[in-house]
């Protein structure tokens, strides 16, 4: 399949979906399903043409393994989420434009990952940012769109600056050559600015503020794409910043921290801060979607640390975490969306006991969080294991401390929606609610199977990653038939899974042979001899970790800091205004002259 055909078909279908929706909303929603499934299958078949170049109008593309890998992850998130679209059309403000933007942003991501030069990459990047911004504003809050757009813009403009700076010395926009021959101060400036779009997109501290706002307030059907897919665009830029810009080579003479050049270590450290901040903030959220958004911040930290390590083990872990987090996070967001479809809310204190109404959705969420928290036998464990091994190889103790904190803290926050939304007492309002239909259940089940597949047969995915590692010239991860080998030990995920099944089987048999238990009502519990008849009162979910939250409730918040900064900038503007535009016109003229002359003088000297 030719890349040009894929892009053309998806773009045509995108435009078509807008008009189809005008006639029939449901049909418009199904167009997104068909189109995204087509794109996924077509991109999957591009595997055969790796290494080929395409030129479409002014845009140049090249098919690489890493692009193929990233865009499959992205299209999985898009295509699975699209199954929800037809059912949500009535809830959208502008369903036609939603479908159009949905497919347009999807086509944009394909362009990003296969771009051959930076101009192509940048054009498609901005397409994705713009079209997704228009989708986000159809959700609960307009403010979320502003924050999303401003943070994205800061990132992309800084990156554009880096690209131009590199162009001024190398004279080319081709990704693989643009950074050749950089050195000294220019190299550091290019590296520091180029990675910014990645940090902003992946939600690394201090750019993480947009994730909870955008993920939390976007339409329920777009949050899975944002968290599972679009955030991974940032990982791609991080990948480029250590491979296309050979950061380790350029900085090989700079000051090193634990064998890693200081500029790279600095960003890894930012990743570690994101893990801690994301975890702490996720623990105290009251909205399930915001909680998952902060968990994306924390997981973005793992991905960044893994990719920036650029070694045999940790890098593979980071790359694999992209798949695992995409799958798990999309599944978790989808299951919350399914619950919201029935109950109309994502606030955790307004729900309870949905497991008795929606058992399949519950299982989907359960498997997703097991993977997200990095517990075997799901995929998240394998990638976190690899990242830990990588950190242990290099002795990066502070990063490891953050990684452990995030890993164990994730048990705390992923359990909250599980307990508040699905377990506990069912609210009287929800007693008659039903499970979602098969069409919405289907993508969730596929993602669940994928989570299990990545955990039990990780080598399927790691083989692709090993190819990527070979293509960028580092040692590929050592893989035996079933096992992953590192110099600190090896992991046989299938056998771990089988033994787990064995233990489960023994427990199950033991449970079955004992006398059958009597089923009692949920309200029939020990209440210290109090009589409680209100289900809602017997459900403990609000401020679940109150004693722990109290320990850091006074900690400074990033958003507050930004607000303070904006006030200060406004004040500075006021000061400038009072100086330049006072009541006396001669004063204004004087300052304009003075500034003009100084500027001319500096210009002459430089």
């Amino acid at each position, binding site marked *: 399949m030719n890349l040009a055909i894929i892009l053309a078909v998806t773009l045509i279908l995108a435009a078509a979906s807008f008009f189809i929706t005008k006639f029939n909303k449901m049909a418009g929603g199904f167009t997104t399903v068909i189109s995204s499934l087509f794109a996924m299958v077509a991109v999957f078949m591009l595997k055969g043409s790796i290494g080929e170049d395409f030129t479409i109008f002014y845009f140049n593309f090249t098919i690489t393994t890493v692009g193929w890998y990233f865009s499959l992850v992205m299209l999985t998130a898009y295509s699975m989420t699209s199954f929800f679209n037809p059912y949500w059309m009535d809830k959208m403000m502008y369903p036609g434009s939603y479908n159009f933007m949905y497919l347009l942003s999807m086509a944009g991501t394909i362009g990003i990952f296969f771009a051959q030069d930076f101009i192509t990459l940048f054009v498609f990047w901005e397409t994705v940012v713009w079209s997704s911004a228009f989708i986000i504003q159809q959700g609960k809050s307009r403010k979320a769109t502003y924050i999303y757009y401003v943070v994205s813009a800061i990132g992309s403009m800084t990156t554009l600056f880096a690209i131009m700076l590199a162009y001024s010395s190398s004279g080319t926009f081709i990704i693989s050559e643009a950074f050749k021959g950089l050195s000294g101060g220019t190299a550091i400036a290019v590296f520091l600015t180029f990675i910014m779009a990645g940090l902003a997109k992946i939600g690394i501290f201090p750019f993480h503020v947009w994730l909870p706002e955008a993920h939390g307030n976007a339409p329920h059907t777009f949050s899975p794409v944002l968290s599972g897919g679009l955030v991974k665009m940032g990982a791609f830029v991080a990948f480029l910043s250590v491979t296309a810009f050979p950061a380790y080579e350029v900085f090989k003479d700079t000051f090193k921290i634990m064998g890693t050049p200081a500029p790279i270590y600095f960003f890894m450290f930012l990743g570690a801060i994101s893990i801690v901040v994301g975890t702490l903030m996720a623990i105290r959220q009251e909205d399930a979607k915001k909680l998952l958004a902060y968990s994306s911040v924390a997981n973005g930290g793992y991905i960044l640390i893994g990719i920036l390590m650029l070694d045999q083990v940790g890098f593979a872990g980071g790359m694999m975490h992209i798949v695992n987090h995409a799958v798990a996070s999309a599944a978790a967001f989808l299951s919350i969306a399914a619950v919201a479809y029935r109950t109309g809310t994502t606030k955790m204190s307004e729900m309870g*006991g949905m*497991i008795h109404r929606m*058992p399949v959705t519950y299982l989907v969420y359960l498997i997703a969080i*097991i993977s997200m928290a990095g*517990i*075997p036998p799901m995929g998240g*464990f394998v990638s976190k*294991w690899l990242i*830990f*091994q990588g*950190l*242990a190889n290099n002795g990066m*103790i*502070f990063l*490891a*401390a953050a990684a*452990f*904190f995030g890993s*164990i803290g994730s*048990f705390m926050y992923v*359990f909250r929606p599980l*307990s508040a939304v699905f*377990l*506990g007492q069912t609210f009287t309002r929800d007693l008659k609610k039903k499970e979602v239909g098969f069409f919405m259940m289907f993508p969730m089940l596929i993602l669940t199977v994928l989570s299990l597949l990545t955990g039990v047969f990780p080598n399927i995915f790691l083989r692709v990653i090993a190819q990527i590692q070979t293509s960028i010239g580092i040692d590929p991860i050592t893989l035996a038939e079933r096992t992953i080998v590192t*110099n*600190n*030990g*090896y*992991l*046989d995920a299938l*056998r*771990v899974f089988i*033994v*787990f099944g*064995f*233990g*489960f089987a*023994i*427990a*199950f048999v033991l*449970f079955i042979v*004992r*006398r059958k*238990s009597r*089923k*009692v009502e949920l*309200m*029939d*519990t*020990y*209440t*210290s001899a109090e009589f409680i008849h209100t289900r809602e009162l*017997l*459900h*403990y979910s609000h401020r*679940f*970790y109150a*004693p*722990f939250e109290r*320990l850091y409730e006074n900690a400074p918040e990033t958003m507050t800091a930004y607000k303070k900064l904006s006030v200060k900038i406004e004040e500075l503007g006021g000061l400038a205004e009072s100086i330049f535009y006072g009541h006396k016109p001669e004063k204004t003229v004087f300052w304009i002259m003075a500034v003009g002359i100084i500027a001319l003088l500096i210009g002459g000297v430089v």
Partner: protein
Amino acid sequence: MSIMNFVLGFAMLIGVFIFQTTLTGLNRKVTARLQKRYGARWYQQFLDIFKALRKDSTSHGWVFDFGVIMALGGIMATVIFIPVAGFQSFPGLDNVFVISYLLAVGMLGMAMSAAGSGNPWASIGVGRALTNMLAYDVPLMIVIFTLIFAYDSSSLSELSAMQQGMGILGWNAVRMPLGGIVAVIALLGMLGKKPFDSFIAPAEIASGPMVEYGGKHLGFMFILHEFMTFIEVSIILALFFGGGATIWEYMLKYAILYTFTNLISGVMPRFKIDQAVKYFFKLPLAMAIIQGLVVIFTGLGVTLWF
């Protein structure tokens, strides 16, 4: 992987159950003597478990049952991976990360089942248990990280074999004394011994997660508790006290370590959960990081004795 591995694994489960339950029974006596009581007979723990398994039980829905099965299944799978005095039913699968995260499957199952009972006491208990886990696990994992960095291995059996043959000087608890202290304090937290037992506080939150269990469910929880104790003590024993060259040495060391935690528990009051977090994130965390930095930058503790 053959049938033999599974048979050995099953035999190990039986052996561990008998050993640990006996030890728990004996320790009930030790605690009683500490408190100037006579104490129950040493086999009382067995009687309690089998009595619970025989009785009628009530269930609060399928997740209440499923969680119990998942918890016991996950914990039993973890026990099978633990190397005991060089013996492993599934050789090569004793990676310390696998063990400590597989343990979490069991804990998640237990938390799920408890929260599924619909009792708010249970949810409060689970919330505290998870907070407690965050508190003790971070310092402990940093120390384990240090060990992996120092010895280039994350296999429990290899790490414990390296400490053998030099007597007490080979033990990591002696070579890396700060790490050893952190590990023992973390063990108290893992086992839910006082002062870190706020999540099961019987008089305060009606035994927390355990509040709704009765009959076979309670029996399952008792069995689970014995297995979990075995896993937790074994990890610390293998990593910091050299495991055991023979099964007898292993059992003796194990009994001493376990009884030691009970002796401390017997004379301690209880931390509130936020106090426990504050405690772990001050001294033990600092000690763990100092130990890590010493090992990473000076190699002291790894090379000194060779």
